């Protein structure tokens, strides 16, 4: 039925054949960010994240719009090991992809960006939150997922609003845990929160290391309003809530987390996005990473429909201009910041099954748009 309809619309639109709009999608085989079964006894077993499904959904969502302007979005999805990424990217560009969405960890985003510096292509980093990827200032790169700084600012705005001002920071052994704790500390100090302590935890059960592996000891001997846990692998953090010496809320990697998307968001058409995703993936809940890929592809198709006959550089300029008003189903219009290519967006503070607050928290003001109270603002942004 739909095929007939689309065919009919194409006929109606004229005799011109629809122009292919090739959109690349590049991911890493065996990306450890999504395969959590390394956890002991494989206790953490969320369904594997395949963000390519977000890209597929965006193309289905915008099929009518694309047809109306004679465009035919074609997804070129490739996956490769770390060594093959640059070659895959170049092959996609050679095949005509003008925009390529990256679902890669930060170090590999860098590798790919360098290999694409002189190619006629725009990259959209969807899932590497590190601010260094932004301040690297790749001219042909946009970022559709929130930066670490944006999610940390979200926590800090909420703590300020709740008047929970003294924070105990617990940090894991993974280097990315240190990075997360550093990012939080930076945001917290900007808003004059007090970090009353920063303590390292370890998974080792050695009694001699009990200062680092016993949650009661880790959270004893000082007073605080809230515990921030930096545990990107999730192996220790999940044992912290309800186990602290003082009865205090836990935020960060566990407890209350800052997310681009959450299935429990039920306003502003979010439910429809989540349920379309559920249906398409046989019941998988849309994650923040899925949303970031979905919104990246949605940006590309929307851009090409609004700026007909433009090349990727012109479309990229349009996406970064105030004229671009993107609907990410979060109730406000989204757009890419001209200074660092970052998508500005509201960020959710969510527990495992509820959205508790949405930043920018009411009361945070900004001369241009309150969304720019989250992340590195223009005045403070510098390229590395």
């Amino acid at each position, binding site marked *: *039925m739909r095929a007939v309809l689309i065919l009919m619309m194409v006929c109606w639109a004229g005799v011109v054949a629809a122009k292919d709009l090739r959109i690349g999608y590049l991911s890493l085989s065996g990306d450890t960010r999504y395969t959590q079964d390394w956890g002991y006894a494989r206790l953490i077993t969320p369904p594997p994240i395949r963000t390519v499904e977000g890209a597929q959904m965006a193309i289905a969502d*915008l099929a009518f*719009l694309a047809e109306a302007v004679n465009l035919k979005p074609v997804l070129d999805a490739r996956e490769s090991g770390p060594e093959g990424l640059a070659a895959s990217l170049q092959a996609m560009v050679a095949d005509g992809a003008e925009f390529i969405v990256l679902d890669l960890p930060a170090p590999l985003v860098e590798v790919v960006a360098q290999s694409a510096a002189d190619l006629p292509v725009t990259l959209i980093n969807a899932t590497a939150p590190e601010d260094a990827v932004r301040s690297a200032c790749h001219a042909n790169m946009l970022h559709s997922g929130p930066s670490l700084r944006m999610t940390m600012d979200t926590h800090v705005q909420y703590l300020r609003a709740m008047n929970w001002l003294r924070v105990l920071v617990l940090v894991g052994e993974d280097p990315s845990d240190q990075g997360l704790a550093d990012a939080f500390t930076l945001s917290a100090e900007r808003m004059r929160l007090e970090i009353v302590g920063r303590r390292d935890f370890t998974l080792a059960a050695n009694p001699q290391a009990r200062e680092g592996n016993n949650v009661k000891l880790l959270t004893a001997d000082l007073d605080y309003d809230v515990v921030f846990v930096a545990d990107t692998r999730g192996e220790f953090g999940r044992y912290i809530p309800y186990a602290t010496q003082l009865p205090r809320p836990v935020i960060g990697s566990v407890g209350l987390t800052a997310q681009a998307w959450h299935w429990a968001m039920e306003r502003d058409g979010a439910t429809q996005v989540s349920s379309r995703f559920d249906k398409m993936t046989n019941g998988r809940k849309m994650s923040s990473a899925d949303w970031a890929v979905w919104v990246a592809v949605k940006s590309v198709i929307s851009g090409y429909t609004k700026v007909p006959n433009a090349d990727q550089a012109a479309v990229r300029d349009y996406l970064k201009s105030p004229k671009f*008003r993107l*609907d990410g189903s979060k*109730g406000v219009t989204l757009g890419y910041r001209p200074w660092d290519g970052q998508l500005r967006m509201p960020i959710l503070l969510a527990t495992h099954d509820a959205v508790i607050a949405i930043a920018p928290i009411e009361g945070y003001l900004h001369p241009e748009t309150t969304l720019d109270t989250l992340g590195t603002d223009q005045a403070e942004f510098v390229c590395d």
Partner: protein
Amino acid sequence: MNRTLLAAAICLTALPTFAKDTGLIFVSLERGNEILVLNPDMTEHKRIETSRRPRDMHFNAAHDKLYVACGDDDSIDVIDVATLEVIDSIPTGPSPEVFAFSPDETKIYVSNEEDSTMEIIDVATKTVTARVPTGAEPEGVITGLDGKTVFVTSEVADMVHVVDTATARVTKNIVVGTRPRRFIATPDGAELWVSDELSSEVHVIDLATLEVAEVLSFLPPGFRPEDVTPVGMAITQDGSKVIVTLGRANHVVFVDAKSRDVLAYTLVGSRAWDVDISRDETTAYVANGLSDDITVIDMATMKAIQSVPVGRTPHSIRVDD
């Protein structure tokens, strides 16, 4: 014939023309799973339990029945206006949100926001006679004056689909602003107005050419464009004045429909969505989705005169006068 035209006018403007003059005000409560019925003095008359998540509502031309789309039970409930009881239920596709009648009331056109279709339902047999695929998240539905055309918005595809009711096919797509929501048509059949929630605009479509004739934008003092999220609209019977709810900007705007001049911005409740006007056009009622109340506006002064708490998440308002 005259009756058909009048019925068409009802579909287009959502303004009651046949009156029983009960003066009752119906408010659908999306999270309350009920319809609150208010007396003309705004005191509570009754609460009618409905299927889950009641949203858009329309009277039939005779005004003896009120139809309510219930999103979480996939049905359109039918309420007897005399007894204020649910007397029937019409099954629909997943998550019906907004609907319109054909001018002769034999058909219902309903948007099913979760499976990207507009269904055509035969009212007498309660069966689906056609499913028209639309862009994702179809919402606003309105029947053209002649009944040969139905217009439906797709919130995700940013367009208005023009549907031929005889063939149940989309004959044209009109690209409008970001996240198009609802419609009104001018009573003379010349223009169709579409609210664009996320581009803070109203697109005016020329019904003769089916092209966008004009794009209107509104900005209450002290707000930024991104705060302005237009959704619901109502037009006076003479077609001279339009009220547009501005959502997060917590205002409605009164617009001169001909000159497009802003006549007033009126402060209402939080996230103002739906609006309806009483038949004598002395009063407008605005549903505020985030403050769980409705605002009563005096049409002469264009000022809010009363706020009435109604229950969880008011979606639509219809006046039976």
